[in-house]
C-alpha cells in the first residue's frame, strides 16, 4: 500500500500547448491536486479590434494550429449572422464537409499519435512504427485522406485559403470529389480496425459526475449552429452563448475558465455523444454500443472512444454530403456581403468541443469588440476537478507513483486539450 507521493509534471507532453500537473499525497491524504495552465496569452480579442470583418476568419483561424478550420468557420458564421446573411445550401454542405474532415484529422491525430501510445506502452508513436506497423499505417492513411480532402475543399489543410465570408473563393474539382468518395468508403475499413483495437484496450475505470455542454440536435448530430444544451437541462439560443460559458479567471491559469450549473463543465466528443446520442446514424450507434459507449458516460477517459465513434459518423456523413453535392451542378461560389452595425455570434462544434465567436461591428463592418470562447478553456476547470477526484481515487486504491503519474497524464490527454488555443 502506497501512502505518499509527490508528482510534479512541468509541461505535460503529447498535448498541444503548455500545462502542468501537480499531485501530492501524504499518508493517504491528498494534499494537493492541480492542473495549471501556463501558456502565454496572444490577445486575439484585442488584435481584432479596429479590423474590418474580412480579417476575422483569416486571423481567428490562426488561434489554433490543429483546429484552424473550425475557428475560420466559426468566425465566418459570426460575421454572417451579424450581417443577417444566410449561406447557400451548397456553401453549407461544403463547409460541413470541410469541418468533418478537420474533425477526422484532429481526432485521428489525438487517438493514435497522442493517446494510443499510453495504451500500447510506448512514449510516442515512433516505437509503434516497429511494434504496430499496421496500426500506424492505418492511422496515417486516415489522416492523409482527411487532410487531402481539406486541401480540396478549403484550399489548405492548415489555415485554409478558400474559406471567406459569403462562401468560397473557389470550388473543388467534381472528378476528384468522386475519387474522395471512394477513399472515404475504404476509410471505413481502417476505422473498423481502429474500433477492434480500442475494444481490446482496458480504459481506466474512473467516474466523476459532470455537466456536459454541446449544440442541441434536432434528430441529427449537429456541428454548425443552432441551440445550446447542457446535460443538466440548461437550454439557450446561440446568441446567448455567454450565459452558457460564464467565463472567469483564476490564479492557476492564464486561460479563462467556465462553469454553468456546477463548479465546472465539459465539452467535446463525449459531451456531444452524451447529449445527442440519438442523432448518430444507426450503424454508428451500433459501434458505440459495442464499445460500451452508451449515455450517460461519466468517465472522462472514454472521450477518446467517443472521438473514434465520431470518426465513423463524420466519414459516413461526408460520403452523403459528396453525393448531395454531385447530384446538382455547381452554383455561384460566393455571395455578396453587405456589412451592417450589430452583433454576430457563431457556435460551432470544433473537434475538442463547442466553440463560440462573437463580434460587435460598426456601420462599416469594423470590429469594435471581439470575444472567442475556446473548447479547452471550457474544459480546464473540469480537468482540474477530475485530477482532484483521480488523486483521491488513486490514494484510496494505494496506487504507485508511476501508476498515478501515468493515469493523471492519460486523464488530461483524454480531453485532447488544445492549450495554446485556450489561452489565445
Amino acid at each position, binding site marked *: 500500500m502506497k501512502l505518499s507521493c509527490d508528482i510534479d509534471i512541468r509541461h505535460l507532453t503529447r498535448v498541444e500547448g503548455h500545462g502542468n500537473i501537480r499531485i501530492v499525497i501524504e499518508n493517504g491524504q491528498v494534499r494537493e491536486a492541480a492542473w495549471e495552465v501556463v501558456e*502565454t496569452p496572444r490577445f486575439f480579442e484585442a488584435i481584432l479590434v479596429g479590423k474590418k470583418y474580412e*480579417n476575422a476568419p483569416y486571423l481567428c483561424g*490562426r488561434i489554433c494550429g490543429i483546429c484552424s478550420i473550425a475557428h475560420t468557420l466559426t468566425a465566418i458564421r459570426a460575421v454572417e449572422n451579424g450581417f443577417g446573411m444566410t449561406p447557400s445550401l451548397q456553401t453549407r454542405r461544403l463547409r460541413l464537409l470541410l469541418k468533418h474532415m478537420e474533425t477526422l484529422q484532429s481526432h485521428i491525430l489525438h487517438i493514435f499519435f497522442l493517446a494510443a501510445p499510453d495504451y500500447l506502452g510506448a512514449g510516442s508513436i515512433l516505437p509503434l512504427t516497429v511494434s504496430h506497423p499496421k496500426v500506424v499505417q492505418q492511422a496515417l492513411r486516415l489522416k492523409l485522406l482527411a487532410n487531402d480532402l481539406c486541401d480540396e475543399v478549403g484550399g489548405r489543410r492548415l489555415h485554409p485559403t478558400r474559406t471567406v465570408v459569403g462562401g468560397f473563393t473557389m470550388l473543388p474539382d467534381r472528378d476528384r470529389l468522386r475519387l474522395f468518395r471512394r477513399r472515404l468508403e475504404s476509410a471505413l475499413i481502417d476505422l473498423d480496425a481502429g474500433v477492434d483495437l480500442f475494444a481490446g484496450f482496458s480504459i481506466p475505470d474512473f467516474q466523476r459526475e459532470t455537466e456536459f455542454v454541446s449544440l442541441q440536435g434536432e434528430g441529427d448530430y449537429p456541428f454548425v449552429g443552432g441551440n445550446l444544451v447542457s446535460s443538466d437541462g440548461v437550454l439557450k439560443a446561440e446568441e446567448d452563448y455567454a450565459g452558457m460559458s460564464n467565463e472567469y479567471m483564476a490564479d492557476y491559469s492564464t486561460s479563462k475558465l467556465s462553469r454553468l450549473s456546477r463548479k465546472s463543465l465539459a465539452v467535446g466528443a463525449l459531451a456531444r455523444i452524451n447529449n445527442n446520442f440519438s442523432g448518430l446514424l444507426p450503424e454508428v450507434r451500433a459501434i458505440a454500443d459495442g464499445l460500451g459507449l452508451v449515455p450517460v458516460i461519466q468517465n472522462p477517459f472514454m472521450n477518446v472512444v467517443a472521438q473514434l465513434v465520431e470518426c465513423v459518423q463524420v466519414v459516413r456523413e461526408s460520403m452523403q454530403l459528396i453525393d448531395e453535392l454531385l447530384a446538382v451542378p455547381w452554383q455561384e461560389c460566393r455571395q455578396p456581403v453587405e456589412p451592417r452595425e450589430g452583433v454576430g455570434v457563431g457556435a460551432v462544434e470544433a473537434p475538442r468541443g463547442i466553440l463560440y465567436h462573437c463580434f460587435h461591428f460598426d456601420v462599416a463592418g469594423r470590429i469594435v469588440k471581439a470575444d472567442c470562447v475556446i473548447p479547452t478553456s471550457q474544459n480546464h476547470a473540469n480537468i482540474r476537478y477530475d485530477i482532484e477526484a483521480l488523486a483521491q481515487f488513486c490514494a484510496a486504491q494505494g496506487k504507485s507513483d508511476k501508476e498515478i503519474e501515468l493515469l493523471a497524464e492519460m486523464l488530461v490527454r483524454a480531453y485532447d486539450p488544445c492549450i495554446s488555443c485556450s489561452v489565445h
Partner: protein
Amino acid sequence: MKEGKTFLGVPVARPRVAFFELSSCEGCQLQLLNNESTLLDFLSLMEIVRFREGMKEASDDYEIAFVEGSVTRKDEEERLKVIRKQAKVVVALGSCACFGGVNQLKNRFHDLAWVTKEVYGSFPIDTQEVKPISAIIEVDLEIYGCPVKKEEVERIVTLLVLGEEIQHPQYPVCMECKARENICLFDLGEPCLGPVTRGGCDAWCPSNRMGCWGCRGPVPEANLDQLRIIMAERGISREQMLDRLECFGGFAGYLASQDGIFGKKDTKEE
C-alpha cells in the same frame, strides 16, 4: 548518433534534433506531422530527441533546435538563451518566430495596459511587446510562412542535414503565380501582396484565389511604393493594403519608414 543512413550511397550523420515552441498556434510543428506520406522517411533523416507535442521522452542534448513562435514573456527569453547555448544550429520555424507573426498585431496599439484590459479586464496578466526570436538570440536559419510549407521544410532540412548551403528564393510570389498560369487577382479586384512577398510557397494562397497576405516577408528589392500605386489604380483601399502589410510583421521595417502615410497608428482612426 546512429549509423546506417545513406543519401545517394553516401553515409549521412543523423543529427540530434529538438523542437521548441514559444507563443504560437503550434501549427508549424504540426505541419511536419501533416506529412503523412513522407513522414517516416523524413523522420529517419534525424534523431528527434525532443518534441513535446508528439513524444514523452525529452533530452537536452541536441545539435539542431527548431523554434516556433514569437517572444511575449520574460521566461520565453530565458528559454531561448538556454536553447542557444546548447544548439549548434538554431532554426526559426514559421512567421511568428521570424517576424513576430499575427501575434505582433497587438504591438500596433502601443498601449499594453489597454491590450491586457481588453481581454482580461482587471485580472493581472504578464505580457510584453511581441518580438521575433532574432531580437533575443542569434538565429542561423529562418524558414518563413504561416504556416510553413512542408515541402520547403523537408528540402531545407535535408540540405541542412547534408551540410549543404541553403538559399531562399530571390524572386516574389508573383513569379510563381505567373508560372502556375493563375488568373491575376488584381483582375478580380482582390488585394494581393504577391508582387512584393518572398517566393518559395509556390503561390499557395493566390492559386486558391486568395490574395497574398505577405506571411513570408518582403522579397529583396521589393518595390512597395509601386505596389501602392497599382493597388490605388485598382480601387483597393489603403486600409486593405495595410491589413496585409502589418499582418505578420515581415513588412514592419517598411511601415516604420512610412510614418504619416500608413502611420504606426490604430486602424480605427482611419
